[in-house]
């Protein structure tokens, strides 16, 4: 069997009566760029914590690169790099000290060449000697990413790495993460920016109340749950047309599956005596999929 980067079977975690994880099954192949989406409290961070050994699942098994995260925790953790959701740092150290210490924790001495490379890619070279306390929030976030990468883990998990991070920095970060993915690293990402997940992730799982409620390739999810839309503003109202919804203020919306349906719709409007003043085409987006999935689940 080819090694899955991550294999989760029946993972369950209870906090009192609350089921933070309610029997999660998930397999992520090596080299995937995978998105883990869900509203606040869905259990994303709990799932990542169970995978990282920060939390013990009540039931189920979790493996990283074929290594059980409890029985074989040393190997599992060596294969995993986690960027935690909380913006944490150790105020006693400089950026370089923090990265050297983190390397040492993973059994690596003399890691400066790789540390320099990470710093350069994250635009942190100028801050290498700065104390962690003196860094801005965005900088601290980048150091967290760097700390997760010191041991070149084949599997990298990022828990909302772009929360509260400015656009420019996000671009730079994704460029680097894509590069790592291109070099064979498996990436698992949670984010609230659905456009981000849509452009980056090949496959997506949606989590709600500790359960996976959708799991498919991004393309399939978009095709399955969302349609294109054609919005028209008419000079004067027309009698109701089949397949259309009135949006008010003269706007009419048609749901269409493909762009070649546009011509037919326009003809339909003209035949009903409508005159088109403005037109908008809406692409299917993950936001619509997300809302649809969450409502129906």
């Amino acid at each position: 069997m080819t090694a899955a980067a991550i294999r989760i079977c029946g993972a369950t975690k209870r906090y009192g009566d609350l089921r933070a994880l309610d029997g999660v099954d998930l397999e992520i192949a090596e080299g995937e760029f995978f998105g883990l989406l869900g509203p606040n409290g869905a259990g994303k961070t709990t799932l990542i914590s169970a995978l990282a050994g920060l939390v013990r699942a009540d039931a189920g098994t979790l493996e990283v690169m074929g290594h059980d995260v409890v029985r074989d925790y040393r190997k599992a953790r060596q294969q995993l790099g986690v960027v935690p959701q909380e913006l944490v740092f150790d105020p006693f150290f400089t950026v370089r000290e923090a990265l050297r210490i983190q390397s040492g924790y993973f059994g690596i001495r003399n890691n400066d060449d790789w540390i320099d490379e990470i710093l350069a890619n994250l635009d942190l070279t100028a801050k290498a000697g700065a104390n962690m306390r003196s860094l801005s929030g965005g900088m601290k976030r980048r150091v967290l990413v760097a700390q997760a990468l010191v041991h070149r883990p084949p599997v990298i998990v990022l828990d909302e790495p772009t929360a509260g991070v400015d656009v420019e920095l996000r671009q730079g970060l994704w460029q680097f993460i894509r590069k790592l993915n291109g070099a064979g690293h498996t990436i698992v990402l949670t984010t609230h920016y659905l456009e981000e997940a849509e452009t980056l992730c090949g496959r997506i799982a949606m989590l709600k109340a500790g359960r996976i409620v959708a799991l498919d390739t991004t393309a399939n999810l978009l095709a399955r749950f969302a349609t294109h839309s054609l919005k028209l503003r008419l000079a004067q109202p027309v009698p109701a047309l089949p397949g259309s919804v009135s949006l008010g203020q003269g706007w009419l919306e048609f749901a269409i599956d493909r762009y070649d349906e546009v011509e037919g719709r326009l003809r339909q409007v003209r035949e009903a005596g409508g005159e088109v003043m403005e037109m908008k085409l809406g692409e299917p987006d993950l936001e619509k999929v997300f809302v649809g999935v969450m409502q129906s689940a």
Partner: protein
Amino acid sequence: MTGFRTLLYKEILRFWKVSFQTVGAPVLTSVLYLMIFSHVLDKHVQVFDGVPYTSFLVPGLVMMSILQNAFANSSSSLIQSKITGNLVFVLLPPISYREFYAAYVLASMFRGAFVGLGVALASLIFVTLPLAAPGWILAFALVGGGILGSLGVVAGIWAEKFDQLAGFQNFLIMPLTMLSGVFYSIHSLPDVWQTVSHFNPFFYMIDGFRYGFFGQSDVSPWRSLGIVVVCFAFVAGLTLNLLSRGYKLRG
């Protein structure tokens, strides 16, 4: 081993970077105790034959510094890391709970030893200290530092807020060290309190440690060492058990 060594190094670096507070301040406190108590009591109190009170006092103060600072080091490091959240940096890597324990306790013993040495050296300004049996000094410093370093790990894991930790320190560690014969020989106490003192493990740490300097003690150093080692085994076992279960660390 690199993981363990790095964690030990990091824990030592952490207190060393603020050594003004973590080493300098406790040395100063002890020296002040020494100056005041010796000035007030030197002419009135004699505990051991031929040993001036000020000399008698020094080993007790040194040991108290070792114990209190060993406790302070692991407990404050852990609670700070828990509250700021940066303990994840230690929890994510493949470091075993035994390595975790050893690193935190050894760093605490280092801090205790640094402060103890500082107090001992500073006291040489005021007194001359005999070294009757240095092996005992070393043995009790090590085991005592190990016990308090372990207790610091327990307190640091258990406490969720700084004031809970302060409670642990003020209502358990401080009274036990103060009532252990740092400032007096328990033979100068009423019978009841002598009996009570014999149930205080800190009494044996201090008494045995002092034996290393003067070759005199309230109880036999062998007996003290035996009791102290049993205490260490108990506390270490408890701490390792908590760590192996991930108590309050790995939810």
